């Protein structure tokens, strides 16, 4: 089946089997391996991407279900050669260790912060409750998301780190 998606702002078309999961379409057909696979059972959130701005676990959708939609993956976060404030904050605040969950965490954070730039601890916790991190204990992830929110709310005050 033909599937056409706008992925990170670029329209891409592929001819794929209907059974192909969205995560495999992204990783193997479009060769964007920043979206990870952690569990195969929709438990861990390592494969989270944004579908029309909404976080979805891409192992839970078929590729063809994304036809005509916009997808954002971690590779789409860098803007004009600069790290997105969320990326800069995860890097600065040690919001990652092994980094495997990080793309999914950052995309959930993006959806949250675009809605609510100054989330409380509880709001951040609830937002990322579908994403597992095995390394950090989550403390620095919450800090990173809140720091990113502050930077996004006051862009002039944030020294955007160079990508």
């Amino acid at each position: 089946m033909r599937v056409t998606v706008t992925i990170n702002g670029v329209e891409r078309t592929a001819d794929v089997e209907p059974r192909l999961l969205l995560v495999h379409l992204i990783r193997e057909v479009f060769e964007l391996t920043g979206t990870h696979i952690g569990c195969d059972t929709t438990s861990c959130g390592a494969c989270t991407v944004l579908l029309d701005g909404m976080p979805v676990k891409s192992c839970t959708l078929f590729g063809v279900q994304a036809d005509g939609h916009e997808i954002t993956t971690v590779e789409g976060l860098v803007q004009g050669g600069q790290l997105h404030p969320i990326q800069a904050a995860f890097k600065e605040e040690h919001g990652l260790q092994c980094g495997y969950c990080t793309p999914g965490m950052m995309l959930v954070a993006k959806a949250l912060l675009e809605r609510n730039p100054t989330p409380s601890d509880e709001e951040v916790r609830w937002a990322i409750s579908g994403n597992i991190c095995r390394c950090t204990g989550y403390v620095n992830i919450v800090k990173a998301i809140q720091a990113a929110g502050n930077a996004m709310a006051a862009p002039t005050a944030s020294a955007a780190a160079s990508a």
Partner: protein
Amino acid sequence: MSTQLRERVRGVVGESAPRIDGVPKVKGTFAYGSDLWHERMLWGATLRSPHPHARIRRIEVGDAVAAPGVHAVLTADDVPGKKLYGLEFADTPVLAWDRVLYAGQPVAIVAAETPELARRAVARIVVEYEVLPAVTDMERALDPAAPKLHEWGNVLRHVRIEHGDPDAEAEVWVEGYYETAMQDQAPLGPEAGLAIPAEDGGVDLIVSTQWLHVDRQQIAPCLGLPEEKVRLTLAGVGGAFGSREDLHMQIHACLLALYTNRPVKMSYDRRESFLAHVHRHPSRIWMRTGASREGKLVNVRARLLIDGGAFASSSPAVIGNATTFAAGPYEVPNALIEGTAVYTNNPPCGAMRGFGAPQVCFAHEAQMDRLARELGIDPIELRLMNAVHTGSVLPTGQVVRGSAPVREVIELARSASLPPEPEPPPMRHPMTLPGGAGNVGRGEGLRRGVGFAVGYKNIAYSEGFDDFHQARVTLAAGPGGPVVEVHSAGVECGQGFSTVLAQVARTELGVDRVTLHAADTQLDSAGSTSASRQTLMGGGAVQLACAAVRQELFDRARSRVGVTGALSLADGWVLAEGVRAVEIADLLETPITATRTFHHRRTTPLDERGQGDVHVMFAFAAQRAVVEVDVELGLVRVVQVVSAIDAGRAINPQAVEGQSEGGTAQGLGLAVMEELQLRDGVIANASFTDYLIPTILDMPPVRTEIVEVPEPDVPFGAKGVGEHATIVSTAAIVAAIRDATGRELNRAPVRPDDVVGLRLPASSASWPPAPDVPGQEPLPAYHGVARGQSALTQSS
């Protein structure tokens, strides 16, 4: 002033320097093993035994060979070299023949054009098994009438530590029995790698692992190749926690690549990951603790049993650790501690963060609480009264010679302010109640409890191992000033090791631009990224290499520029008597390179009485946990953890906090949710829907207190910090649940049935007898089984 600040080298030792791998990881360009790709690449898949114990009558591969897209179907007959490998002893078949000893053991491997075709071909392999009686209980394994797994029986290692007068009488005794479950490391990145056949008949392997050189040492003999024809490069590691110490797909992918002469990728899914790596040992611990009326410990008698599963893995070292730490970080003048690791037909167990220490901490800390109750002494005062300090003698006779800030970690963990009392249930958001998102209660039957635990562990390898670390440092001119290139085979698993190396190099050479070479086997071994050892060992190796580079730089400064007096380096300059004399960049018309190897202080094996200077150094930790328990529903919410970490010196404080917080999460998992459940030797919950690991909603705020009392005679006085929190947090959290419920709760993880009293405490009829063994060594050593990693460390 402002100019100086700008020029100052940042990211040195002691600063929370940003992670050196931060940018590729946030951009999604960091390539994990599962992201590797090669032209003309085939995919490998594995057929695994469904039975915990069976004889293989026949393997029929014809249908699989004939399946579409299949390029190879290999069994044990196709292994060109040695058919056995292993981390400590070569007792593990590359592919099973004759018998399978656990459910999940690899039997055959396939290479095909796509992962789907490879899996379909695996399903077409016919194996005829004769199912044999399985030994799936660790006490049953000790029964002389039980089926024997190996020719030397079911005992893998028995350690006996006699200290002082083991028959010494005490005024007060408390006795307990404890169990901990099999825990999975569950790194988020599954096992994966890519093997590429080389023109010289060798193979290049890019793989997510913890120790490249000991992998190669095990791989090459099985391929029938000399080590130099097996070249390993580290792929991105998506967490490890011990699970990647043992081989997973390494030999299989290399075999398939050499057989097909095509690159072969193997990448496990989550279910296979659960089957393919070793787990944390389940334990059973019997302990009697004797003290004077005043609360001074007099005698500890303990019997430890851990389930090693079907093959040795690192179980001999784990039981060595568990036995030596079983009395806790306390002064005990008399002790008899015996620990046994047994073989069973359960999945193999090996390294997981803490390496035997979390299991015994769970027991010795529960004993301290019992004793405090019996004596009517405050449990924290009891711990303080008995805490080891520099100069204390441990049950092995080893004197604690380094820093031992046990009182400090205890005081910090206890003095932190408690979380505020919660609002009464009707006022509270139901999400904040135990059971939270499950919306199962309205806060009836809530009770708060506070628990405390202290523990300790060794840093680096023990019992005579020389697990050295080699590093190469090159200082060269770059377009924007001098650049330091650091090369080491040490593995970054996510904990921040490579950032530590960069910080050490910046500190030693006064240069801020550091490039890290990919970890590979071009240099000599760096040892394993385990045992909290890489900050010590890698930091030490880079410091030595930097010192050699600095010496050459000073020689150049003296001979070419004529500087005199005492020289030093800072912020890109050579200083003479503290005054800027010449820029480093001006001395680098040719690069300066030095390769150096760091060895830790030598230790000794355990003697026949279990005495010896067995550990390099010690790190201590204390935690206080506050929990809220719904005693009607049996649900637990951990409200707060205060984690006091003895770091020696924090090379990167933010990274130390990360280790403390992440380590606490894994200890919390074993306290309240994580358990690999076995049904007759078969893992029943090999998925993240059935094996639960803590999400953020399960995690409390963790407050970390870093204690810095430098360890003498080691680089920067720094101890590793990878395992501290995990050692103590299970014990602290379960103690808090005991405090809230008044129940015995002698088994981790605590289940709702335990909390409400539907399940009785774990019990045991009697202490198991000591097996008849020739000595303290692992049994395979007495039977001539080939050595694994210790041969590597001793020959170099």
